[in-house]
């Protein structure tokens, strides 16, 4: 959806207004309502920092002193952002605790002035209203919101390892009660306007064009929000009950992610104390949270993500495209792109596989509706954009073709030969291969310059990463266009080199292999997986193999073992499982058994372990070997030029595999351990377990120089 509603915050021009350097404008309307509009110069976003607070404070002072003001409205002049939150750069790497305290004090003081303002205050929310923006809105008497799709309201601080500390925890608790406040703050969810209204976070919703009028109508009767109500007080008294309930939900993540716990403490303790004390709790909590590496890693990832999402050229979401192959990936791609607005020809060679693909698409849409990510109407419109085609069809007027057929070189080459003949000349021809060489696929084409790898991850609708892989002849312009295309489709692209496994699978494979080797050495499925989830992985490696499919993983393992025989191999147990047709989740059995409510370790397989360790993992850090193998391979990727820099490696691994985000990515994690220590451990393992642990030359170099992968 496009928003074409500029300047709905500012009203008719005849009124008196003055603009301040940080883009904060004050306008006194003839009807006595003052409008403060945020319009940060040279940016599409409004952010809060010390200078904005300074100017806002002075404006509030002057308004306070002047007479004849009947109401005060806060608005934005940006097309899709109210206030996106604090300027996070202020919290980057080397900020001191006292700096944070100062900024928190400044924000709390300023917002308290808004809360104490004698005439009614109204936040006219259009566009993203997150973090500090939401805290400003909470300090107002009334909140009205536009129903534009860009309007999203909430406090996502905990997702960055922070705690809302400009009154967010305190005021949201007072507005909605501790249970609702905890729900919103701990999940960090941003709500669309209608949902925010349902929850009571905003008072009214209207079209963007009517927003200012509605805000004025809220302000003009001169009513401040009614103060404490009995209901509100009763709700706040629930705090002691809310806390243990919410804590139980946090249990699994609390160790790695302290911020939600800290926020919960502020919410529940602050609920029963005066505002001033609750604000002090906020401050203590954020100082504690911001000092952690977790917070720094999460903020750093946030910036990496932002940077990788920024478009550099003109390429847009494809208007028309084709997906060749209606398997799991093909269906996932067709669903994703069609839901974003592209018309997609979904092509397969016969009706039966196409029918399965279309069923998968329908299922994805149904799930989207069930999860309220989409409306019934969106889902139908999306489905309508997919044109299923069994057998060859003309492919004219396309912007993009993504091949997602079987992972066999002959198959792909044949398809690309046909595509070169059939598909429109200016279409980008992409392959979604996860293992095969782009250059080799492209070599059958007369114009290999428009062939590129676009490796999406499964499930497409959930995985934000796309590896963009130019072949040796790919036109750099096509690479740029493919990057932007992925961005336009709401994905985050990382350009990687055309070597087997590309980046993510290559780094992941030694980790998966090492985990299965641990099993072959007698450790139990459950112990291995538990060790890795305790490390912070979203899912244990053996479970992940089951999800991916043992056969698919075996295929990738083979490609990689052929390419890097010195470090990679196909574990025997994978071959055994494949022979027995136990492909993991899809066949009901792999390392785990799927049938009951929860997957249980496959007892039959475990009974066959030739070696067993009766004592279990006593005294061993089961996570160490897989993680070291992963870090070493990450270093090799950097060394071999597969990724442009350590940031790309970290971002890709976090987005592509869920690598413990609080650790900041594998190379960031390596830095925190120290390359020298890693080399030492790798050498010890090399002696004990074999040559596959031979440290990467780049690691040796870093250890020697005693520096990290990331410059501080």
């Amino acid at each position, binding site marked *: 959806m496009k928003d074409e509603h500029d300047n709905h915050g500012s009203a008719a021009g005849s009124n008196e207004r003055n603009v301040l350097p940080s883009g904060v404008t004050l306008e006194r309307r003839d009807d006595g309502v003052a409008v403060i509009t945020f319009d940060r110069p040279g940016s599409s976003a409004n952010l809060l920092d010390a200078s904005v607070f300074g100017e806002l404070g002075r404006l509030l002072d002057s308004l306070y002193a002047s007479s004849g003001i009947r109401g005060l409205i806060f608005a934005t002049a940006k097309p899709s952002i109210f206030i996106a939150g604090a300027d996070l750069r202020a919290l980057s790497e080397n900020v001191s605790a006292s700096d944070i305290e100062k900024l928190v004090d400044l924000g709390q003081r300023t917002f308290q002035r808004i809360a104490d303002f004698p005439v009614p205050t109204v936040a006219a929310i259009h566009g993203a209203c997150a973090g500090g923006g939401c805290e400003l809105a909470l300090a107002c008497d009334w909140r009205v919101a536009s129903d534009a799709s860009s309007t999203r309201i909430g406090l996502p601080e905990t997702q960055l390892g922070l705690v809302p500390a400009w009154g967010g925890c305190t005021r949201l608790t007072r507005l909605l009660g501790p249970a609702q406040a905890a729900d919103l703050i701990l999940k960090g969810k941003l709500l669309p306007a209608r949902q925010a209204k349902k929850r009571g976070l905003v008072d009214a919703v209207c079209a963007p064009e009517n927003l200012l009028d509605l805000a004025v109508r809220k302000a003009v009767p001169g009513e401040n929000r009614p103060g404490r109500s009995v209901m509100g007080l009763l709700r706040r008294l629930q705090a002691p009950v809310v806390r243990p309930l919410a804590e139980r939900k946090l249990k699994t993540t609390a160790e790695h992610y302290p911020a939600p716990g800290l926020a919960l403490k502020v919410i529940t303790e602050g609920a029963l104390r005066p505002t001033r004390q609750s604000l002090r709790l906020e401050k203590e909590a954020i100082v504690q949270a911001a000092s952690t590496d977790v917070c720094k890693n999460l903020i750093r990832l946030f910036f990496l993500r932002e940077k990788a999402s920024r478009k550099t050229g003109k390429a847009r979401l494809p208007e028309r495209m084709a997906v060749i192959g209606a398997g799991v990936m093909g269906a996932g791609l067709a669903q994703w792109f069609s839901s974003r607005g592209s018309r997609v020809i979904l092509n397969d060679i016969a*009706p039966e596989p196409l029918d399965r693909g279309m069923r998968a698409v329908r299922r994805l849409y149904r799930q989207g509706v069930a999860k309220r990510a989409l409306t019934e109407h969106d889902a139908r419109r999306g489905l*309508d954009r997919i044109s299923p085609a069994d057998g060859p069809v*003309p492919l*004219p007027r396309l912007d993009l073709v993504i091949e997602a057929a079987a992972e066999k070189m002959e198959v792909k080459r044949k398809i690309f030969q046909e595509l070169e003949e059939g598909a429109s000349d200016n279409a980008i021809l992409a392959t979604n291969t996860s293992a095969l060489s782009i250059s080799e696929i492209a070599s059958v084409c007369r114009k290999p310059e428009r062939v590129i790898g676009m490796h999406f991850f499964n499930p497409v609708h959930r995985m934000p990463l796309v590896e963009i892989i130019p072949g040796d002849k790919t036109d750099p312009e096509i690479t740029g266009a493919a990057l932007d295309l992925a961005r336009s489709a709401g994905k985050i692209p990382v350009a990687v080199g055309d070597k087997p496994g590309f980046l993510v699978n290559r780094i992941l494979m030694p980790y998966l292999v090492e985990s299965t080797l641990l099993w072959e050495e007698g450790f139990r499925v459950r112990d291995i997986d538990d060790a890795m989830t305790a490390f912070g992985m979203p899912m244990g490696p053996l479970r992940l193999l089951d999800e991916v499919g043992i056969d698919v993983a075996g295929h990738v393992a083979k490609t990689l073992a052929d390419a890097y025989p010195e470090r990679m191999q196909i574990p025997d147990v994978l071959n055994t499982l494949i022979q027995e047709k136990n492909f993991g989740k899809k066949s009901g059995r792999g390392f785990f058994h799927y049938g009951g409510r929860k997957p249980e370790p496959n007892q039959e397989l475990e009974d066959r372990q030739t070696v067993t360790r009766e004592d279990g993992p006593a005294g061993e850090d089961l996570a160490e070997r897989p993680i070291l193998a992963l870090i070493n391979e990450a270093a090799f990727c950097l060394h071999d030029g597969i990724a442009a820099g350590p940031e790309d490696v970290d971002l890709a691994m976090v987005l592509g595999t869920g690598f413990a985000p609080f650790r900041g990515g594998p190379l960031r994690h390596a830095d925190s351990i120290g390359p020298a220590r890693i080399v030492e451990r790798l050498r010890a393992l090399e002696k004990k377990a074999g040559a596959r642990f031979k440290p990467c030359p780049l690691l040796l170099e870093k250890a020697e120089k005693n520096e990290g992968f990331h410059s501080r």
Partner: protein
Amino acid sequence: MASRLAIIAGYRTPFSRMGTDLAELSADDLGRIAVDALLTRTGLDPEVVDEVIFGCVAQPAEAVNLARVIALRAGLPQRVPAVTVQRNCASGLEALTQAEEKMLAGRGEVFIVGGTESMSRIPLLFNDRASDRFTRLARAKSLLDKVKIASGFRPADFRPRAGLMLGLTDAVSGLNMGETAEVLVREWKIPREEQDAFALESHRRAVAAKEKLREEIIPVFAASERSSEPVRDDNGPREEQSAEALAKLKPVFDRQCGTVTAGNASQITDGAVALLVASEERAHKLGLEPMGFLTASAYVGCDPKRMGMGPLFAIAKLQADHPGKFGPADADLVEINEAFAGQVLAVLRAMDSADFARNALHRDDPLGAPEREILNVNGGAVALGHPVGASGARLVLTALRELTRRNGKRALVTLCVGGGQGAALWLERE
């Protein structure tokens, strides 16, 4: 000479008996699938389309101006207008002939036309008394009034009226379509055995034509939650259909003395057809190869009680309009829509009847019935089904495909139309 309308390509969904494979899809779903397949398989740039014209008898209440809904859902540009047409059983033909008329009037050169019907989803209706109560209930202000009105409902109020049955009953003569067929078979003395034999042959031909028909059918994917297969073929034709089984069926419309049964009547069916048509010149400019041309067409009214005789009047009108041309004998193929086996047989008798020619058609010589060998060669609506709004377009598509296969030149397509009309048109290949 004015430009001819070229029929360039056409696809249809399988025709599925009511309540079976396609029952979950609405008329606009079916139409969208057919139009989308037409665009995808031809690769046509939808920007060149001047209008979308679709026929449908029972337009779904939630898709008023169904053609517009289909066009937008299938990805036609917003600026391309769309109109839904209704000439009962000839709605699918009406879409085609309207395109021709618009072309001749200089109002467009490229059209997507067709017809769609979901007879499975024709709604049940409340009777007038219940509707009235609902209206008053909605208007009632006080709770007391509401309770009063609500308590006035009687069980009989909730007995629905089947929209399908209402639609198949002629409003003027008051006869159900099947009853009009009974009139014909009585008057033309067509025995039950002959009707059943004709029906059996329709099934036999449709079954034998399965592979041929696949050329015009596009599979429907993920059509329902229940099945796990694409819907690929018409499910009306019965391979195992026997004369004995047909003979056992009870007459439906005249239970005592009638001869029209569910077995020798057309099936109630869901389906959609889409055709790409354009003026000959425009087709040539766009590099589109025509399957054939629409060379003449006529609609004419007749007695609603004997609506099944419609084809005779339409054929006669065509001949009268173009002296010396368009006699049934000129056709390499003839399609007479099989509303009822007995009705087609009555038409064939009347075609050879000098009396009928003189008295009803006011001409000296009879029209002359076509040989059975060139009539409905791939089966007809008795076997394939009759999704009323779509059938006309299906006949055109099936006839043109067959004409191409046989390398024939001319086909005559004709239908009887509920309410007392006949439609006939001539298709030609170069």
